[in-house]
């Protein structure tokens, strides 16, 4: 009595349940002979007497392997295969087709119509055993692959939901556009590259006509940079500034932030511009740390890039950041932005650049702030030729309106 010791179905890779084989043949003698052989080998066997009931059994039982005769009434072997391959639920099923020993052309047709492997009706018991085992092995591999793919898909879904949720939180930290204080109007555009990004900006009225505003950029992308940005933005709340810095002077703020937020193990850091706008005194004080995305457009149209060369936060704990003071007048517009906006590449890799951004802004003239912000984004998109920005893009425009407090 043959023992079928090589990789018996129940012992295959420690699987607890026997594997199932579906035998579809309208000829009963051959069918039960094959079924008996398969049972001896340890498989669970399902028999079907024709193509139609075979398909039903396949759908219902999802066997590891289907062995089917070529010639059958109504739905023959090749037609069975075609139907299986067209059904998204069944299409990865492993099918072993019976052929006549002396018709090799059958194999070409069988393959074309969807069979995976072939077995001659006149095959020896050894060949039958070998083909069946190889078919079941293939089916097991496919099943594992499908399970792994499904699990990845599920986990991906969970991750995406979590990122969505985190992205919503980050967006909730952004200031609402509009009149943020008497005499101050703000408009913004925010396009994180992966739905979640490391750029954050804010403008907060501190009372008495004084506002604090900043735009920070955490290096890197995605979740970790968003987390770091949220941490720095918490530090930059007025209460925390007064507690940890002792003042709202931009230079002092960055000097302290520099100590509190060192370079991470991965070499990640922040660039930032922090400004203090005093409407009554008509002053704008600011400090920058490695951040070049800031300019002032006077009501006259005069255009000044504000940044001074300065190390990004975290590069050197001993850095002292210096405050620069400017006077401002009604009609002046301050723009804080991330380099993701002016560093967009076109199809050949050429960057849009600060000069072209300046041209765009100046070209808008005295148009309303909302239009200018919208126009800048449009032009960047036009330059790169598509809507998806490769890097986080943030732009905050602040106008000191003609209304006097």
């Amino acid at each position, binding site marked *: 009595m043959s023992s079928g010791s090589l990789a018996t179905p129940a012992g295959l890779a420690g699987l607890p349940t026997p594997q199932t084989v579906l035998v579809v043949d309208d000829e009963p003698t051959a069918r039960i002979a094959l079924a008996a052989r398969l049972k001896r080998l340890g498989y669970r066997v399902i028999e079907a007497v024709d193509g139609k009931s075979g398909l039903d059994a396949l759908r219902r039982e999802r066997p590891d392997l289907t062995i089917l005769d070529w010639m059958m009434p109504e739905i023959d072997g090749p037609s069975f295969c075609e139907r299986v391959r067209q059904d998204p639920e069944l299409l990865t099923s492993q099918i072993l087709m019976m052929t006549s020993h002396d018709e090799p052309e059958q194999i070409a047709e069988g393959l074309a119509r969807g069979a995976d492997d072939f077995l001659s009706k006149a095959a020896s018991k050894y060949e039958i055993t070998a083909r069946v085992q190889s078919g079941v092995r293939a089916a097991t591999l496919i099943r594992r692959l499908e399970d792994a793919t499904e699990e990845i898909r599920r986990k991906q879904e969970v991750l995406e939901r979590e990122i969505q949720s985190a992205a919503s939180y980050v967006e909730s930290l952004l200031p609402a556009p509009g009149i943020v204080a008497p005499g101050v109007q703000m408009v913004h555009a925010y396009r994180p590259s992966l739905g979640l990004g490391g750029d954050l900006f804010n403008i907060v009225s501190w009372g008495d006509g004084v506002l604090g505003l900043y735009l920070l950029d955490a*290096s*890197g992308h995605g979740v970790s940079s968003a987390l770091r940005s949220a941490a720095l933005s918490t530090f930059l709340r007025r209460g925390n500034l007064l507690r940890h810095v002792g003042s709202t002077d931009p230079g002092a703020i960055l000097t302290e932030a520099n100590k509190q937020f060192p*370079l991470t193990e991965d*070499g990640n850091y922040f660039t930032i511009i922090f400004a203090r706008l005093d409407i009554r005194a008509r002053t704008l004080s600011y400090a920058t740390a*490695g951040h070049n995305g800031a300019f002032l457009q006077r009501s006259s149209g005069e255009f000044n890039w504000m940044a001074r*060369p300065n*190390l*990004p936060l*975290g590069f050197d704990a001993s850095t002292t950041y210096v405050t620069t003071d400017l006077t401002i007048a009604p009609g002046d517009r301050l723009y804080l932005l991330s380099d993701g906006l002016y560093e967009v590449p076109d199809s050949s890799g050429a960057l849009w650049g600060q000069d072209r951004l300046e041209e765009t802004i100046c070209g808008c003239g005295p148009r309303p702030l909302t239009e200018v912000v919208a126009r800048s984004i449009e032009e960047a998109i036009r330059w790169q030729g598509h809507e998806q920005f490769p890097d986080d893009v943030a732009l905050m425009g602040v106008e000191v309106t003609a209304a006097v407090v």
Partner: protein
Amino acid sequence: MAMQVKERPVLNGVVLELTGDLTYANREQFKTAVEGVRQKGCRHLILNMAEVRFVDSSGLGLLALVSQNFKLSQGKVSMLKPQSYVREIMSLANIQKLIPVYDNEQDALAGHQRAA
């Protein structure tokens, strides 16, 4: 574009000739090369940036990291010949405060000795 790194020993230090982009994609390569040099006891690392086309924000962070690590082992880092766009990035970030920038190797070597 991938990055190539070649090591060349000089007086009291090592020059790393970099070719390509110093970016997020190439960070492991760069970190490995630098770590290798540092662990051999190098006191002065000179980064030759002449053939570096592009440095992204990750690359900038890497430079800062390397500089900090070398300081911890009583060494220092200098930069040699950054070109056009890369030079601009370096100066806007005020990198020379952290990593001195030189236009030729003799100056780089001399600079180190003066500081020592």
